[in-house]
């Protein structure tokens, strides 16, 4: 049975493709053996530069930004517009203005940044003690639609956070 399946596969287009890939791989392996050691080292260095370098940069970024929610301020919105958090769990925000000077304050929580300088990240941390919806808004006049620049943090009770996962950006209970 197995032999029959293999025979049919070998006769099909898929089998031809597999044989072609095998041949190319075999040729590459034979060519690689003929490559001088200095060239192999250089190829390794270039591979590292092209693949591992950018991968390391991205990996580092992910690692340093774990447990941090980045909020980008642009005329005239915060991205994301809604943040989910859990009662009693610390929230760490990194707020970055992408264009002009903005401000940032959360109504009902002790968080206020008077000046968000473009390109300069500001980190804040707070622990909401009560469930509910908190609004954050721009506190520095930033243009004609400054008044429309706000977002919300929905703080859910601990019990609810454990049973229903949030739909958008959130912090997990640690």
């Amino acid at each position, binding site marked *: 049975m197995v032999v029959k399946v293999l025979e049919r596969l070998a006769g099909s287009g898929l089998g031809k493709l597999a044989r072609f890939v095998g041949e190319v791989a075999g040729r590459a392996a034979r060519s690689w053996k003929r490559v001088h050691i200095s*060239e192999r080292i250089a190829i390794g260095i270039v591979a590292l530069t092209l693949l591992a370098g*950018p991968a390391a940069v991205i990996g580092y970024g992910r690692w*340093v930004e774990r447990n941090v929610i980045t909020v980008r301020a642009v005329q005239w919105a915060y991205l994301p517009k809604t943040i989910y958090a859990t009662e009693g769990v610390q929230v760490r925000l990194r707020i*970055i203005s992408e*264009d002009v000077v903005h401000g940032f304050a959360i109504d009902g929580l002790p968080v206020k940044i008077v000046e968000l300088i473009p*390109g*300069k990240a500001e980190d804040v941390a707070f622990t909401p003690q009560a469930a509910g919806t908190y609004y954050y808004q721009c506190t520095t006049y930033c243009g004609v639609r400054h008044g429309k620049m706000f977002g919300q943090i929905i703080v859910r009770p601990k019990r609810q956070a454990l049973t229903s996962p949030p739909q958008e950006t959130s912090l997990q209970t640690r």
Partner: protein
Amino acid sequence: MSLEARAVDIPAEQTPERQERFLGVVPVDARLELTRIPGVRATLRSRWMTFIPTTVNLFLFLVILMAGVVGTQVGNANIAIVFIWILWWSALMLLLVPFGSRIWCGVCPLPIMGEWLQRSALVRLAAKARGLGWKWPKRLRNMWVVNGVFLGLAVFSGILTTRPWATVLMLGTIMAASTGLFLLYERRTFCRYLCPVGGFLGLYANFAAVEVRPKSVPECLAHKSKECILGSASGYGCPWLEQPTNLKRNTYCGMCFECFRSCTRDNMGLFLRPFGTDLLVESHRGLDESWKAFIMLGAAAAYSATMMGPWGWLKDWANLRSLGGWAVFAGGLAVLLLVVLPALHGAFAWASWRLGGRAVPLRRVFTNFSYHLVPLGLLAWIGFSFAILLPNGSYVLRILSDPFGWGWNLFGTAHVPWTPVLTAWLPALQAVSLLFGFVYSLDIAWKLARQTFPSSPAAARAVIPQIVLLAGLTGAFLWLFVG
């Protein structure tokens, strides 16, 4: 270690008079062979010497590409803007070109993928080149295309130097185009005839204090196998399509040191020399290079006015705040660089021609005298670069730790505040740069006059309008920088 300054074999036409001196001090033909320093020749012969820095630059370039695409679009918080326009551009003008000629071209990451593909090798010698190996059309073997490409980018300078996405779009396009063209055309055709950076590096490299030249020209001429042109078992033929045996100017020498590897007689040398030596080499001069000199001089003035001047409306025009304003800026810049400056130079060249007795063709007077604009142009760019680097250099430390503007702190320098350095000295530095350029340009103008006109009295009369022109240009730059 003792090194003796020595005169190398320089063809007679390279120096008007062998005892001539720059600024009355340094002999025109003074040379110090750096390859006599132990280890220098061996280092330059190693292909790793170019491979390693190029690969490091390639990595940085990839980070810059990523930053332009996914990083913050706030210019001073993004590595694309800070590294390219503050660090790299200033380094080119302040150090790399004056003291290293086209050394940047030898380690430039933009065309390297194309060259690797063309050779199908990284550090080993490939048996034959891949690709179609076409030859560049004869009519285009000059700087005109490069002038056009540079001008095409210059009109977008307000966007290119402030928006990371624009910088990266430009660099990515150059990289993609160069890679493709390496597979179509032979060797480094792209770098020689198309690279927008290579054009001005080539012109200003003639002012540089170093050169790659044969140690003995007669030995080169007697060596019939011409390995530096055709290649040998140890190196490629000149990737820049030059004839190292007959190299008289730095314009198209990309400082890749391939001729050091291919020459089996070790007859190539790296020499320290006085500034501006190649500006006195009469062969290979042309109007394409004259226009490059006008473009670079005019661009230095235009960028100084736009980026550092008090005229907000000019900034707005350059920054494409309105299409009409930008059109006026782009048109004005093109007219200034392509028409006004050449016409101004033409008027003074005409006056020199008249005062010099009309014994030589006007075109020759026009072309020859355009080369004395090179020292002033480069030193004006140096003054401009001081004004970019000193107030903004501290961003480099911040960007090292946070290249994407994402709030990282890789090396603990992300919170270094913006700190202008030595800005109280900036006007003085700019003025000294300009005055050095002015004096050097005067010296070159006088030497060019003696080279161009048949007698010293005629040259003395002919140089007077050039002195007036150089004084006027220097005065205009002084007003722009410190006025």
